């Protein structure tokens, strides 16, 4: 039984089949095909079609083709040397070739490869097709294959641009209304459909892309620049030459020398040249409050300053505590700063040479209140619950069950203290104490007064609390000047005169330096500008 290969899937089918059993493609070219396919006039193929299809087309066959058929029948009966027959192509095809437009390439291009063929009569193009046509077909197919491979291996310019620029624009939609008409398969005669040619189903080698990153010239330049920067980063760079003594150094040393000389002179060579300040309202108010304290009054003292400003606060507070201890006040020391308890102990020890203070009897150190504002608020609302022990681990407060220390006897709440004195150097800490205490002590029925001994740098912050009405701060001693004023008011003669002298001289020289520096800052550029103007005028 004769079989025919399907032009679509390449499988064998009985020759009587009109359609492929596997893919339903037309096994025979359609009679109502395109005009292009009708114009095909390849003699070999035409002969096969006649033979296969069994169409009686003698009436339609032109003369030149009839002659060719007759000659072909002769060839079939007496096999001839194909080479000898094909060796005379001009004689054999000259007639039908002249019927074609004469454009060999156009005719070849219109050749339908989808034409069926018999497996028994395997196409031997060298036998059925003339040499020149066979060569042309082979050459064209080779060129197509080479073109396909070239396209597969080398991406197009547009693809390369997309890869390099990361273009994500959608691919162009194919215009299906245009394009070639399909001339084979079940979609034959339609335009804009996928080709049913065997070549379309050919297994192609998958497209391969280069693993190398495609970069443009400008990107390459940036990469080189980045690489050079990274390489330079690892290279040790020589340090710039520093001038051993600059103008800035000279200025700094000059100012330091002048200030040190101003401070040292009164300390070393003189004694109490400058008088203490006559009067200070805040210090006088503190003096009045302390003088009105009852005997053995309980006083809470907060030590909330850092060691760096201990000299200022110790000196300012010393006349106040001299007066306080002379009135017989019993002190309770506390701090919201970790370094506060040891500074408090050190401060109290400085009085031991003149006046013996017994721990627990005349003063007690409760140590450190943790928690900042929360801890302080807790202590104000419940002192015994917040700090039950002293810094030495002793029971600090007197209760019904056990006796406390004499210095804290009778204290159950914060308002049991006659006075609260706060030594502070930080504006936030001072404000925290005032804010947490003022709702409790601003009460006409509460006799507890709040006194602040502060560093000079805090005066702008705390003075509004002292001068406002109602008055959360009842007394204010500010810095060395406040302490000196208090010493003068209280009549004490133990204020360090050398300290006050050095402070006065140092302040005077510092103010002078600021004035000279400010004038120089404005005058020197002006003078140089004037000199340059005069030089221009002379020229």
């Amino acid at each position, binding site marked *: 039984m004769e079989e025919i290969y399907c032009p679509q899937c390449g499988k064998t089918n009985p020759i009587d089949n009109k359609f492929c059993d596997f893919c339903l493609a037309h096994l025979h070219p359609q009679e109502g095909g395109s005009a292009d396919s009708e114009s095909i006039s390849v003699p070999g193929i035409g002969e096969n079609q006649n033979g296969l299809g069994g169409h009686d087309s003698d009436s339609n066959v032109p003369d030149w083709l009839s002659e060719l058929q007759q000659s072909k029948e002769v060839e079939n009966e007496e096999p001839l040397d194909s080479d000898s027959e094909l060796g005379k192509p001009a004689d054999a095809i000259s007639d039908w070739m002249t019927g074609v437009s004469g454009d060999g390439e156009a005719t070849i291009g219109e050749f339908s490869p989808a034409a069926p063929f018999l497996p028994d009569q395997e196409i031997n193009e060298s036998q059925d097709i003339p040499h020149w046509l066979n060569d042309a077909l082979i050459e064209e197919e080779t060129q197509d294959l080479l073109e396909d491979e070239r396209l597969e291996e080398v991406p197009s310019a547009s693809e390369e641009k997309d890869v390099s620029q990361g273009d994500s624009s959608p691919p162009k939609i194919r215009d299906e209304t245009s394009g070639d008409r399909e001339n084979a398969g079940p979609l034959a005669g339609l335009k804009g459909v996928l080709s049913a040619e065997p070549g379309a189903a050919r297994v192609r080698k998958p497209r391969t892309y280069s693993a190398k990153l495609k970069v443009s010239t400008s990107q390459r330049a940036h990469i080189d620049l980045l690489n050079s920067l990274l390489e330079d980063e690892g290279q040790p760079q020589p340090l710039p030459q520093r001038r051993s003594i600059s103008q800035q150094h000279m200025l700094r040393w000059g100012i330091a020398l002048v200030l040190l000389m101003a401070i040292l002179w009164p*300390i070393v060579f003189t004694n109490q040249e400058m008088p203490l300040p006559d009067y200070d309202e805040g210090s006088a108010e503190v003096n009045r409050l302390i003088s009105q304290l009852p005997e053995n009054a309980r006083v809470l003292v907060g030590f909330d300053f850092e060691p760096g400003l201990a*000299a200022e606060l110790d000196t300012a507070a010393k006349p106040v505590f001299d007066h306080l201890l002379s009135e017989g006040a019993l002190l309770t020391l506390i701090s919201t700063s970790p370094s506060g308890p040891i500074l408090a102990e050190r401060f109290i020890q400085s009085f031991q040479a003149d006046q013996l203070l017994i721990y627990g009897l005349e003063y007690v150190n409760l140590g450190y209140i943790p928690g900042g504002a929360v801890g302080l608020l807790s202590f104000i609302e419940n002192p015994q619950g917040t700090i039950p022990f002293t810094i030495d681990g002793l029971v600090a407060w007197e209760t019904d069950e056990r006796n406390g220390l004499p210095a804290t006897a009778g204290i159950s709440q914060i308002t049991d203290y006659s006075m609260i004195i706060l030594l502070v150097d930080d504006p936030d800490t001072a404000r925290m104490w005032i804010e947490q205490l003022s709702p409790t002590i601003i009460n006409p029925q509460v006799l507890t007064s709040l006194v602040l001994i502060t560093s000079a740098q805090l005066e702008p912050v705390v003075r509004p609390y002292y001068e406002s009405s109602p008055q959360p701060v009842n007394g204010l001693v500010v810095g060395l000047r406040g302490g000196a004023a208090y010493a003068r008011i209280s009549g004490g003669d133990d204020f360090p005169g050398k300290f006050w002298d050095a402070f006065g001289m140092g302040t005077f020289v510092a103010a002078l330096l600021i004035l000279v520096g400010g004038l120089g800052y404005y005058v020197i550029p002006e003078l140089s500008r004037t000199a340059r103007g005069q030089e221009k005028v002379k020229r």
Partner: protein
Amino acid sequence: MNLADWIGAFLGFVLTLLVFSYLIGDNPLFRITLHMFIGVSAGFVAVVAIYNIILPRLFVPIFINNSSQQILSLFPLILAGLLFSKISPRFAFIGNLPMSYLVGVSAAAAIGGAVTGTLIPQVLASMNLFAVQSNQAFDASVGLRLVNGIIILIGTVATLAYFQFGKYSQASEKTQFQTWIDGLGQIGQVFIALTFGFLFAGILSAALTALIGRVLFLVDFIRDILGLLIG
């Protein structure tokens, strides 16, 4: 002075000189002193925290109180333990409970104190400067108080005008309102300059006092040494 006092004074003398060496620029001696100060401060704070807070307030109450107080004393211990979970990023969320408690309570105390202790009292105090009784004789003190109140009022309003966070319109000419605000801002600038001058004077005074304290210590130490040597 005993031996410990002498050693302490000598260390203080040397360390003070090392800090003063910053005058010639940043140098290793100054750095060593700085690191010593930071290390000693951290160590001291740790000792205070352990012996003044953790032991007496966290662990001792568990053992010396009655049973109900012991149970209550466990809560801070548990919350403190949960804070350690912040060390690990995986279990850090467990520490959010004590952290939220700490932040919430701290914020409440700080805001409440600021409103009731500073904001309202200061506003009231500024208003009270203008409170003149109808039957009160207008003497010098009342006049001085009014002048003080007017200065404070102008200073407050002008300083706020200087810190206006508005935006000028695109028109080239200023409106009358903008001209007024600019004028007030100029006055506010004067008040701000005076405030900064006041602050600078205070800081200079405090720093000068600290310097004098150190110089006085150096001079006294040298005198003591000389007195000891000379007899």
